[in-house]
């Protein structure tokens, strides 16, 4: 049942990402990235292996169907997936960790959800930007791009979470 749900969400998020990437074009200052929400909210503390496989699959599909460089999203998503469980454990209060539940805004609370998604998204974006420029030489140009993308994507993710997941679970 969960696998079907995961697969449906996978395709829905991939589709959303592809559509948004095609529609939204703010030039080099911003890149849209909302698919991390799917990877970050699959299940509380799922195995790292499954996190990595889902991240790779999602990154691969996004790279294939958008105009991004092949492999760049999968590489960034993999790094995010590797650190996912550690960050989630930081976000939960001691003794509160429910391994089966979805770590959404309702379960974590707004502050901790923003902390969890924001930090994970930061890792994802930093890796993505570093792979794009392959080093720190273009840091001056990359920092505004990183900051703008991080803020807008975090807002978009919060909106999606509020609009589709937070409400339904009430």
């Amino acid at each position, binding site marked *: 049942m969960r696998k079907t749900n995961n697969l449906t969400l996978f395709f829905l998020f991939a589709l959303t990402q592809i559509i948004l990437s095609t529609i939204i074009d703010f030039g080099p200052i911003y890149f849209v990235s909302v698919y991390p929400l799917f990877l970050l909210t699959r299940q509380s503390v799922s195995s*790292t292996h499954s996190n990595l496989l889902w991240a*790779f699959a999602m990154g691969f599909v996004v790279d294939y169907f958008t105009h991004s460089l*092949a*492999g*760049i999203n999968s*590489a960034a998503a*993999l790094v995010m997936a590797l650190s996912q469980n550690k960050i989630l454990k930081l976000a939960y209060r001691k003794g509160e960790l429910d391994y089966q539940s979805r770590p959404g805004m309702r379960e974590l609370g707004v502050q901790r959800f923003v902390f969890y998604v924001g930090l994970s998204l930061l890792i994802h974006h930093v890796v993505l930007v570093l*792979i794009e420029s*392959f080093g720190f030489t273009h840091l001056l140009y990359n920092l505004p791009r990183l900051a703008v993308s991080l803020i807008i994507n975090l807002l978009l993710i919060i909106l999606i979470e509020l609009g589709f997941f937070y409400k339904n679970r009430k």
Partner: protein
Amino acid sequence: MWKKTPFISALTAIMLFIILESVSFMMITNEGIFQQAKIAGLTLRLKTALSSLTLDIEQYLKLRSVNELLHTENLRLLKENERYKALFTSLDTTSVDKSLTSDFSFISAKIIANSTNKLHNFIILNKGKAHGVKRDMGVISSGGIVGIVTAVSTNYSHVISYLNLNQSVSAKIGATGVFGPMVWEGRGIDYATLKEIPIHKEFTIGDTVFTSGFSSIYPPDIPLGTVRKSSEKGGSYHEIQVKLFQDFSSLYNVSIVVNNKKEELDNLTKK
């Protein structure tokens, strides 16, 4: 059946991450020209660093054989030098002291025991009577004099190291040619004292000190060390501290000096 421990789980997760990340990077390099160039540069740098490291290790492992090769080459040059000296002396009709630039030949040897922490140090070499080694032969190396052979067996020889309170060698200061006995006084393995240098003779700190050749044991002009400091003795002599070139603590290959005219010289002095 092995139990899946957290360690194994973490290890497999890391391996999976590396594999998937490698696939991603392969895709990146296949498509992105900029990334391709960057990765190629990075790979080249890594390769260079790695090959430089392996080369360093290889060279380090070969050091002993290279050292032996250098020693052999040094010995060959010493012999050649002696041949030229002999030839030069025979051509130079104005030379007065022909005996001292005469034939010296050398026997290569390795040190198998060496002491440096006593006041009377000794060395044992892996060459003996069977190789032509005799008592009272000098022993030198590329860093200067080493000692004098005192006892010989068929395959080994015992050498009184220069690091010995009784040992003295006739030495001269290169710039002026003024000579005197250079004695080890037990104040450290790096220093010796050049004595009886007349007070009116001038020299400077850093001048090189050589063997004078006024003995049948060591050939002349072997560099021994440099002048470090001096003090006056009795108002008529300089006593000079010499920093030795020879590092007795890391000695391995040496050459035994064979004076081919020693017997002739000894017979002459007996008469």
